[in-house]
């Protein structure tokens, strides 16, 4: 019984940090993103945010995703503001517990 308890505690202890490290991203659906030459403004502006770890732009699926740095905060309003300043319209915003890599892989399926 003690062994089971010790083992369970060890597993939980190992999993807890993993849970804490799970990535959070903000995913936006953006209208008007048809050309990389024009849309690169979105990537540049979002990449300059202190809390942005990775930025992903997908023209085909009209998606922009920003992975938030661990321990930092970034709200949807800021993302919407930066995309609007770059000249585009945000039609949907969602916070997801996924990394940009995961979102990229999911969209490419």
């Amino acid at each position: 019984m003690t062994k089971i308890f010790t083992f369970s505690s060890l597993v939980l202890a190992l999993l807890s940090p993993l849970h804490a490290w799970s990535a959070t991203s903000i995913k936006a659906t953006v209208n008007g993103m048809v050309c990389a030459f024009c849309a690169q403004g979105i990537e540049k502006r979002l990449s300059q945010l202190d809390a942005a770890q990775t930025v992903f732009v997908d023209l085909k699926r009209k998606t922009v995703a920003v992975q938030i740095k661990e321990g930092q905060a970034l709200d949807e309003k800021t993302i919407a503001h930066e995309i609007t300043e770059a000249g585009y319209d945000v039609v949907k915003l969602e916070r997801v517990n996924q990394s940009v890599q995961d979102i990229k892989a999911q969209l490419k399926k």
Partner: protein
Amino acid sequence: MRGRLQHVLSWNRWYPALLLLSVMGTAQAAPMGFKDSWMVMAENSASWQDISANYALTPRWAVGAGSTFMRSDDKAISRTLTEATATHLAKRWNMPEAQANVWLLGGVGSVSGNDFSGSRTMVTPGFQLDYETTRIYSAMTARFNRADGLNHDMLSLRAGFSFYEADYDEPQPWFIVEARRMNGLSEATEVTPMLRIIHKRYFLELGVNQKNEVRTNLMLNF
């Protein structure tokens, strides 16, 4: 034969179709970048060379400067224009699969020529209408280049398609055809099929017009 070719290429013959095409949906790469960015543009051909740059103060306004060299078809007349410019995004429609824009363009500067002495003040108001999807592109640009005794109004119509839909970080090749005419310098409509490559901040066009003259356009946004 030459007369027949001129007839085929005559402006009056193509204008309605090209205008219709432009109204249906045309686009040129945006003449300014996103807020707080620089846009550098250059064109080189036998009868036209220009270089300009602007800075986007807001998402809708950019100011800059440029220099243009224009030459007549018979090489007898040339103009050199140096101007301060302003670019305004008057209206943008961001659609799920497309974008359309109305741009207002303007400039004021000094023009000199080889057929008059000194320089004159030239104003260059204009506009651009464009429509673009990830596969189709079209644009109509008009510039009214005027100075005392000079009228070099220019109209350009562009249409084309991309060979395939590219990912954001992949180079995307396009086939574009431009018909362009400039009053007072060329009586012929210049038609130039071009290969366009877009890769993020880089924009390059290479083409050869009906007089077998090479043309290069470059744009860089940073």
